């Protein structure tokens, strides 16, 4: 991570990460510009430089010069682009980090089906290796290196929050329970900002009779390595969870209501540590939905507020958990309305992919969030929005403050716990 900011390092990483997928994307893009119309950063600014495919240009340049099939032939007649320069790398840094939440909405509109979000993720490996990373992410990464948590959440802080929730619900939450079936991990935003989620888990799992625990060594789910593009850091953070889970001998690890954490552990995780896990990764929404289907957490009195659902990109569009949250909300809310583009095509909150951890991107994020807010306002009369991702939720609460909206934000786990049938 502290490697010298050399073009060489970045280019080498770019090329390493250019697999057949990325290469075919870069070959196939016909510069049609459609992706701009799907990107909330472009839509909220109308600045052409926020066109998603334009954000890939440094990678394209390196690929066309060094790796594209037939490039050696083209090189002979001087038809390959010049070598990437450090100025270009630095010029593109804000585009790669500040103006992309890796939400993947651009892929939907792309006639070639190009996964720009996934390619940005790979580009960030080059940037991180060359040390060209926004300060906000750098300090989050340093925190994570030191404590395992980007916000530096300590075990003591967790214990304080747990004690409070235990008092509130009257249910004990056992830490480091050897041989439990499930081990839950949490986003640091949940631990610090929305500790009610511990109470919600306790209530739901007690009713379902689920044997669960929290590890004192690996309770943090956020993977800043994935956000920043640092493979080594991402691996280290996943390894902590894997080690703890395998030491406790759990059968399942529950990924929380947090976007990138799910992909980092469920899909990238085994590839980062280089072996399959000895446990299964299950998302909290999948788990609650399954418990509901099995009749172990029967629904009770519904919430009467007019509600809608924000689809967190990494869970719904890029995670495939599309129907589960809707089934759960149908049981929990009396007056549920979908917004335009609900589901896979929903707009991002504007703060994913490390953008919310990057103060330099605050203005961009705020402008992008105004689009999200418009989307909700268009329905009319919405009192509460269900946001099943702790990071989105923070972005929502900050944004709603900024725009002086009195919309309420609720987590899905809490909503289900609050509307559970009485014993």
């Amino acid at each position, binding site marked *: 991570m502290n490697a010298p900011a050399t073009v060489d390092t970045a280019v080498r990483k770019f090329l390493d990460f250019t697999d057949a997928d990325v290469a075919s994307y870069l070959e196939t893009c016909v510069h049609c510009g459609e992706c701009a119309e799907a990107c909330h950063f472009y839509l909220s*600014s*109308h*600045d*052409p430089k926020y066109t998603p495919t334009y954000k890939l240009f440094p990678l394209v340049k390196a690929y066309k010069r060094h790796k594209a099939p037939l490039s050696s032939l083209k090189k002979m007649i001087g038809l390959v682009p010049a070598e990437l320069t450090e100025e270009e790398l630095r010029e593109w840094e804000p585009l790669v980090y500040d103006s992309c939440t890796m939400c993947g909405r651009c892929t939907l509109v792309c006639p070639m089906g190009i996964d720009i979000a996934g390619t940005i993720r790979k580009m960030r490996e080059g940037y991180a290796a060359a040390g060209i990373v926004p300060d906000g992410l750098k300090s989050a990464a340093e925190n994570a290196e030191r404590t395992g948590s980007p916000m530096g959440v300590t075990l003591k802080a967790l214990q304080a929050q747990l004690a409070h929730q235990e008092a509130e619900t009257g249910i004990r939450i056992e830490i480091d329970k050897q041989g439990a079936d499930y081990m839950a991990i949490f986003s640091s935003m949940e631990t610090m900002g929305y500790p009610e989620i511990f109470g919600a888990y306790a209530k739901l799992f007690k009713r379902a009779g689920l044997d669960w625990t929290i590890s004192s060594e690996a309770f943090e789910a956020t993977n800043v390595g994935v956000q920043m593009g640092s493979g080594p850091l991402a691996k280290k953070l996943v390894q902590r969870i894997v080690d703890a889970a395998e030491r406790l001998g759990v059968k399942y690890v529950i990924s929380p209501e947090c976007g990138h954490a799910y992909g980092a552990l469920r899909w990238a995780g085994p590839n980062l540590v280089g072996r399959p896990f000895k446990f299964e990764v299950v998302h909290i929404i999948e788990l609650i939905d399954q418990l509901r289907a099995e009749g172990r957490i029967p629904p009770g009195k519904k919430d009467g507020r007019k509600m809608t659902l924000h689809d967190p990109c990494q869970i719904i569009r890029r995670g495939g958990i599309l129907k589960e949250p809707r089934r759960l909300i149908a049981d929990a809310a009396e007056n549920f309305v979908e917004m335009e583009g609900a589901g896979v095509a929903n707009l991002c909150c504007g703060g994913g992919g490390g953008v919310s951890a990057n103060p330099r991107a605050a203005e961009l994020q705020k402008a992008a969030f105004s689009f999200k807010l418009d989307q909700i306002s268009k329905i009319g009369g919405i009192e509460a929005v269900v946001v099943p991702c702790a990071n989105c939720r923070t972005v929502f609460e900050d944004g709603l403050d900024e725009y002086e909206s009195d919309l309420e934000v609720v987590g899905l786990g809490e909503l289900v716990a609050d509307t559970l049938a009485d014993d």
Partner: protein
Amino acid sequence: MMLDIHGKFGAGPARVAAALLLAFAMVLAIALGAHAQSSVRPPSNAVTNVTKPVGGEVPGNALGATSDGEVWGAIRHGESGKVTIPDGYAATLIQSQGQDWRLLRDNFIINYGAMLILAVIVILMAYFAIRGRIPISGGRSGKVIPRFSLSERVVHWFTASVFVLLAISGVILLFGREFLLPVMGPEAFGLVASAAMQGHNLFGPLFLVAIVAMFFLFVRGNGYKLVDLAWAIKAGGLLGGHASSGRYNFGEKSWFWLAIIGGLAISTSGLSMLFPDFAVETVAPLVGGGMAGRELLQWVNIIHAVSAVVLIAVSLGHVYLGTIGMEGALEGMTRGTVDENWAREHHDLWHAEHEGASTEDVAMAEAKAAHGEV
């Protein structure tokens, strides 16, 4: 043009039949070669009436009282007879208007059309040589105002591309035989003409699409107003003094309406020639044209050529003013924004309305223009 058959020839279909037979024989004779005809002319005292009428004289005095010269003269002037085959046009042996059409086209349209186009070119060159490029009088302000949306620009350039292709191929078709053939020789000209015809026919229908789209996108702001009269009297400030105008000035509005009306005339006439059977049999009766097919198509051809020549001539002026003739004009159609000083100078009323949109952030102004905030 039509003659009263009974009056001129006397009564009886037989006379007409005889006239037709005669004419047919003559046409056949012409086709077989005029010299052959003259070389087998019988001596004046020969008995030519070899096949005598059977059973005495043919009723109705078949040989008639009209001389061959008169019959031929009538036919030459478009006289038509009767035929029993479905194609009614076959009854007219010589559609005389064709001669008028040919004379009009060759002597009038080609000559004066070429002169008009050349004159416009010469005037523009002279104007440029004398007056030079019209500068923005206050210089560039550095601030721009969005003027044309992306849709407007795309439709404009779409129309322009198709127009240029059609104009080039059309000019070759109209003037080629007169001006190119002597220079290129028949071999090369045959090639160019064949290519021009195919290209012209192919791109033609697209022009109608373009003109219709053009109308809907540009009609806003192109209605004439009182201020345009003042502009016209001052000749747009060419004669000195300031001429006020809104979004478009009198000249631009007139060009718009000319392009729309001329464009529609060109398109509909062009389509009629591209699909002559459909035009004559289906469309002409619907619009109440009592004209015979060939006559209709001859008129259509004239309309097509005249409006095309006029549009090409005026478009040269439009292109001149939009490019090298005036500083600051082209960017409105390329980038979608214009300099504030240009707007103040040439479209003061429009500028007054859009002053608020003026900005130094050129990129943002272009983005706004692209998204229709004009």
